[in-house]
């Protein structure tokens, strides 16, 4: 018995959304949680954030970018198809506090998907959310309407200026900061390199910053340590102690190197796609 796909939308050439029937996960998930899926008998275990959930119809929403073999295979599935294994909700839920200043939510590319439930939770808890959505080009800006619904203000930028402002998310952070409104917390999710530079900037500004890390995972339950990251001087297993951590303490360079560990094998696997 698998997990049925009941909705599927293609948002750009490589980014797509699916709603999957998983009532228990929909009921128990909190902002910040993720799932691990395995497509079939020979599939690998791949983590994806729960971007949204609906307890009425028992579905969870996942948003993915096709970056390699398994995400490409997932993308081939259509409404009515089933995913063999879906495990979750995993990870620690987002820590939400009541803030007097704004919560600045910064999403890079498909990182906007994991950002959404966190921003939503801040919004639902009475915090004032300001969002910055950035990507390489227009086609990669996703979930704009969903983010606007929960944000006081939404700034959009692209590297090439094809949509919104031309520039990087860090430029947008600078702008918000310079306007002088109190920023209580920055949440940044996107490629490791983006989170690294956001953290660098917010450190200068002395703004508490939360990032959500995406190391390679296998079990997602704390039994292998494949997902280990260095936070300050401590080794943390992102799957059970994270995936959210203090951005000012994370060793992003190490994260990026470990993410690239299977480059050669990933290439070999992708050859199967033809």
């Amino acid at each position: 018995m698998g997990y049925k796909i009941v909705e599927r939308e293609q948002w750009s050439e490589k980014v797509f959304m699916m709603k999957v029937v998983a009532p228990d996960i929909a009921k128990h998930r909190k902002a910040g949680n993720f799932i691990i899926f395995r497509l079939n008998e020979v599939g690998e275990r791949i983590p994806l954030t729960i971007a949204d959930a609906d307890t009425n119809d028992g579905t969870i929403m996942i948003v993915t970018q096709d970056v390699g073999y398994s995400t490409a295979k997932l993308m081939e599935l259509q409404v009515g198809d089933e995913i063999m294994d879906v495990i979750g909700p995993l990870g620690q839920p987002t820590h939400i506090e009541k803030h007097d200043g704004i919560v600045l939510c910064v999403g890079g590319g498909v990182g906007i998907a994991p950002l959404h439930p966190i921003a939503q939770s801040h919004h639902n808890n009475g915090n004032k959310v300001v969002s910055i959505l950035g990507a390489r080009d227009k086609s990669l800006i996703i979930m704009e309407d969903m983010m606007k619904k929960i944000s006081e203000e939404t700034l959009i930028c692209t590297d090439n200026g094809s949509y919104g402002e031309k520039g990087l998310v860090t430029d947008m952070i600078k702008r918000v900061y310079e306007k002088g409104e109190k920023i209580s917390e920055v949440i940044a999710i996107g490629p490791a390199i983006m989170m690294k530079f956001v953290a660098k900037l917010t450190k200068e500004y002395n703004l508490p910053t939360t990032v959500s890390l995406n190391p390679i995972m296998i079990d997602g339950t704390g039994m292998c340590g494949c997902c280990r990251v260095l936070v300050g001087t401590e080794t943390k297993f992102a799957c059970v102690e994270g995936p959210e951590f203090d951005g000012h303490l994370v060793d992003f360079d190490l994260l990026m190197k470990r993410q690239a560990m299977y480059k050669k094998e990933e290439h070999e696997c992708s050859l199967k796609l033809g």
Partner: protein
Amino acid sequence: MPPRSKLGEIPRQEMPTRSAEERRKDFKEVPTGYTEEQALKEALRCLDCKVPHCMEGCPAKVKIPQFIGLVAEGKFLDAAKKIKETNALPAACGRVCPQETQCEERCVVGKKFEPVAIGKLEMFVADYERKHSEHEDLKVEKNGKRVCVIGAGPAGLACAGDLIKLGYDVTVLEALHTIGGVLMYGIPEFRLPKELVAHEVENLKRDGVKFKINEVAGISLDFGELRKEYDAVFLGTGAGLPVFLNVPGEHLCGVYSANEYLTRVNLMGAYKFPEVDTPVIRHKKVAVLGGGNVAMDACRTAVRLGAEKVYIVYRRTEKELPARLEEIHHAMEEGVEFRFLRAPLEIIGDENDNVVAIRTQVMELGEPDEDGRRKPIAVEGKIEDIEVDAVIIAIGTTPNPLIARKVPELKITKKGTYVIDEETGETSMDGVFAGGDAARGAATVILAIGDGKRAAYGIDKYLSEK
């Protein structure tokens, strides 16, 4: 019954084994099993002692002389039944128990000659039964009470197997997508073929045990809700949390916990990559740190993935290696090099953060400590680098703290193991029982089975008195 042979008349029957040359290249099982003739002959070596000391050495109290007697008569299926009276997983135990420190260590024949090959006979009998008989349907009246078993390792399976026979409605929850615990993700195919485990699980299913995979109690399932839903709960969650070394360089690319390495290869089948989707890197020179079964499995896996050099780096000497003797011999035959009296100091990487060497401190053995084990001490100034491109850490595991952290009523020891009642296996929380590695720290399959059975008894007692 055929007369038993005179002491020492028949030599211990050698288990036929595939050559190191051949087996280095694949993941197929190493021993090929006794022939019927060999089993009959080996069984005659048992003296059928009045006071069978071998049984004292067996944590599951298998009726050893009785089952061996049945083997000697050629009643292999009856022998299987006899074992299964007390041990639900003989195919696994015959293969992975450290018999040399358990049943066979106490065997009287072994005082002067080689001990009776109890483990090999157990393996033969279990294999024979699997091939030659159908599972008999369980006939038992249901008592209407529901028990939840968390974790589908040997402890959980044994507990579930006994409870279902007592008439309980049993549901087993397993976090992974496969049932069997370490038997599936840890111990490799070449030592314990996965189809054997699957077969035992199939039998449990036919007996009526319900399995739910992909359920992580404590994270994806609320423990409090579970406790309310069932009349009793058994925690057989194992000791799956890998211990890292805390030396510099542990984060480099090419450093793995043995759990990760073995999970990729066994559970995810990465040795078949790219036929399956999970990759494993085929390193050239691999150092495995540790000297237990886990270390042996990791080093022999690395050999099979094509490594040219594989080292075991161990703090003490050959005599102190905690792994099963047979596995140590197999590893040596397969070309694994043992670097004894070496303690890891640092893992060294290149400019891209890939492992290039492991720096070790040369040790010597000092005076025996309280437990009589000679403690390794550093030989000052003697440092040795071993050139490798991967390091696998197999220095131990501890219980996963997930559930205990969320349920403060569950008392744990400093080592993170559940505090339990010696007789019933009950934890500090009413109606919650525990056993296996979760209650004793990383131990053995047969102890986990014993604990599962004890808890089944404890649960039955608890629910009958209620």
